[in-house]
């Protein structure tokens, strides 16, 4: 196996690790932030991270399917953002509040 330089030889793993880092950031945001809209943004961040890995796989496996999947993910993400924001806005209009702690009506 030829010696690979981690810094200069950019391979699939680099993109995957970057994707994981971004995904974890998004996940941390979802878990920790309290603003509903920021939560939605963090979900978008997670989706973007996944997109990176899709495209990276697409390139390094020489198949186009990954890119098509990204296309679909983008559409779904946009749809999700639209609905999520519409919900957030209608909640805001009623409660004047977007703090996630305000919506704990799903209690058991």
């Amino acid at each position: 196996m030829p010696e690979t330089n981690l810094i200069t030889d950019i391979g699939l793993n680099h993109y995957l690790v970057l994707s994981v880092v971004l995904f974890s950031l998004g996940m941390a945001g979802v878990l920790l932030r309290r603003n509903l809209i920021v939560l939605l943004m963090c979900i978008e961040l997670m989706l973007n991270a996944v997109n990176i890995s899709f495209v990276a796989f697409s390139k390094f496996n020489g198949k186009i399917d990954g890119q098509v999947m990204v296309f679909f993910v983008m559409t779904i993400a946009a749809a999700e953002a639209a609905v999520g924001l519409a919900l957030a806005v209608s909640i805001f209009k009623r409660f004047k509040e977007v703090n996630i702690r305000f919506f704990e009506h799903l209690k058991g």
Partner: protein
Amino acid sequence: MSSDAFLFWFLALVTVVSGLSVVLMTNPIYSALSLAMTMIGVSALFVTLNAYFLAGVQLIVYAGAVMVLFVMVLMLFDLKHELQAFTRGRITGAIKIASVGILSGLIVGAVTMGLKTATTLTESASAANAAVALKTNPDTTRALAENLFIKNIFGFEALGVLLLVIAVGTVALSRSKGGSHARD
């Protein structure tokens, strides 16, 4: 250091820093703008992965549309005051951070342990990639279109219907006057 590597590290830095600031900024507007920056960085990363058309779409859809919507909503409703940006609770907070950390650690570990297979994959696909990289546009978009419109035609039409449904639904949502159990 080759230019490819330089670009990757540069873009990785941009995306990670702006991603971090999405999570850490207490002002949601800064979060949104940082996220827009992340999107642009991701779009540039797509370019380094030879996905030119997707990079453009990423710009148009995410950076140009979705994030504009976010920023607009934040500005419309003046959501800049945020006294408590983060959730309370030390134990749950610790668990949350730990789970995120362990999860990313596990995946990164799995990815790096799978280095061998990854490199072999790279070598096997490199010939195809070289061709793609040289011929650039026509072949990738052609392949993309073929895949999208022939292999995934059902998904494509279904997405059309989904978008229609959401267009109808958001209009209905934005008109709703609130439910039956408002607080006041």
